[in-house]
């Protein structure tokens, strides 16, 4: 917000127009850093995914482009940029072109409400978590659009599966988030992070701040909530073991089978951005968000300007850690069948999340 004020004053002094000042300040201070963050993250994450999968299968992965292949994704990006943009003649052209943009916009929207540090959050809206849930609706619409406009049975099947899956798994996600809202009384992710300040035993997974009886009673239920939230967000981003929408062996690659070149890259970007987003949400809700578990170096050294930077690093590393766990799971578990997928959601996650919600509610009343 400091950046915003500075930019606003700077532009206002030049143009003498509040509207232009507002818009430029918003874009430069709010939207641009996110884009600058999302793109390199995707490059690193794709490389990590390859390396992690390789090492888990006793391989080495890319080794030749740069040291240990770290330039491989850059090379792939350049390749994708050069590729021909193929649009089959029976594709529904307007929707076909719009779909990747919608999907990417939907996942990018989520980043607006993520608190990266106490000094930087894209938009500090009061309804942070609910906004994130709402934004994912665009992703579903975009996926359906892509599947439909591709005019390809695999794409359509993949899109429908994906939409059904995301919608079903949104319920346990929301239920778990509801338990947290009930305890903390806020939907603002920044406030939520601020409440978990101090050391790691103040994190929600350890029952939140304070030292009352309810804190200790919360711990097992927070653990259950965390597991449910992690599983359902995993399903929402269509990662293995919940990747039946893009099951390579049966649906080629689902809703983006027909896409090539940059449009395909946008889907890819959205997928990895989503991975980070859900990991960041999990860490913001249960693991203190940008809060350091052990105190800040800036405090001990007496350099207050260092704290936001440290917070950002903590936030990023927590996010990346959960992304790594997602990859770990991906290379461990086989794909679920459709009926198993639905059984897991409706028979296990939702009832347990409900019971969890009620018990936590009772404890809060205590």
């Amino acid at each position: 917000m400091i950046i915003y004020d500075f930019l606003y004053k700077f532009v206002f002094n030049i143009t003498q127009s509040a509207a232009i000042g507002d818009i430029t300040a918003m874009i430069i201070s709010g939207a641009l850093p996110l884009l600058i963050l999302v793109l390199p993250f995707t490059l690193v994450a794709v490389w990590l995914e390859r390396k992690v999968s390789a090492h888990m299968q006793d391989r080495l992965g890319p080794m030749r482009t740069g040291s240990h292949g770290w330039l491989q994704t850059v090379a792939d990006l350049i390749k994708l940029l050069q590729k021909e943009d193929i649009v089959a003649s029976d594709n529904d052209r307007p929707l076909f072109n719009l779909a990747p943009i919608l999907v990417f916009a939907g996942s990018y929207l989520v980043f607006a409400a993520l608190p990266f540090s106490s000094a930087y959050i894209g938009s500090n809206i009061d309804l942070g978590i609910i906004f994130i849930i709402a934004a994912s609706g665009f992703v579903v619409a975009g996926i359906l659009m892509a599947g439909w406009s591709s005019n390809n049975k695999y794409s359509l099947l993949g899109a429908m599966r994906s939409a059904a899956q995301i919608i079903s798994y949104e319920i346990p996600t929301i239920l778990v988030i509801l338990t947290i809202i009930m305890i903390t009384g806020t939907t603002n992710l920044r406030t939520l992070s601020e409440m978990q300040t101090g050391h790691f035993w103040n994190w929600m997974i350890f029952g939140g701040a304070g030292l009352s009886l309810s804190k200790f009673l919360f711990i097992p239920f927070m653990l259950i909530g965390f597991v449910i939230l992690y599983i359902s967000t995993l399903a929402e981003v269509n990662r293995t073991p919940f990747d039946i929408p893009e099951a390579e062996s049966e649906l080629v690659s689902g809703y983006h089978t027909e896409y090539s070149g940059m449009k395909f890259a946008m889907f890819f970007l959205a997928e990895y951005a989503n991975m980070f987003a859900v990991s960041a949400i999990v860490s913001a809700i249960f693991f203190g968000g940008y809060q350091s578990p052990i105190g800040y170096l800036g405090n001990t050294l007496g350099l207050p300007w260092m704290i936001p930077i440290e917070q950002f690093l903590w936030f990023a590393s927590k996010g990346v850690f959960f992304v790594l766990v997602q990859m770990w799971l991906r290379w461990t578990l086989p794909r679920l069948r459709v009926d198993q997928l639905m059984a897991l959601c409706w028979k296990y996650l939702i009832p347990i999340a409900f019971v969890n919600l009620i018990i936590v509610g009772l404890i809060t009343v205590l």
Partner: protein
Amino acid sequence: MKEYFQNIWYGLTTVLIGMRVTFKHLFVPAVTIQYPDVKLKLPERERNRLYVNMDDCIGCDQCARACPVDCIAIETVKSIPGEDLGKTSNGKKKALWVTKFDIDIAKCCFCQLCVFPCPTECIYMTDVFEFSEFERDKLVYNFVTLTQSEIEDKKANYAKLEAEKAAQKAANATSVKPAEKEENKQ
């Protein structure tokens, strides 16, 4: 009800067991090798690209006849009497100029049938197996050591010899009686 909780328990524990296995493998050294930089030792009797040592080849055409896919093409020219073609390493005397020895390696099925009949053991398998090309024509290997002009030379020499012989024969044929008579007289 009991089954329900058992299912949950099994689900969680088996996932954790699986995760432990993959985590362990994260630190197992890779079993793959960095292929073009590091290569596996090839087995002793590997069959790869053929090589023909032309110094030893006597142009007997045995290999071409043994080949099941006809990918060896050999042409030879007889030497003229004065020429010395040298000997092969196992002491055979060479009598033919090999003017064409092409192996179309694209057709070759690496059956090694051409290797055994060779009397001088000059056609054999090497350990080279990376010889892909962008054009198929480049996979036709020429082993002939003679230059084009030499080949022409040899052919011309032989043709001359033939012609001389033919001329001789013709001459003989026309004067066969007198010659015979002369011989008879002597």
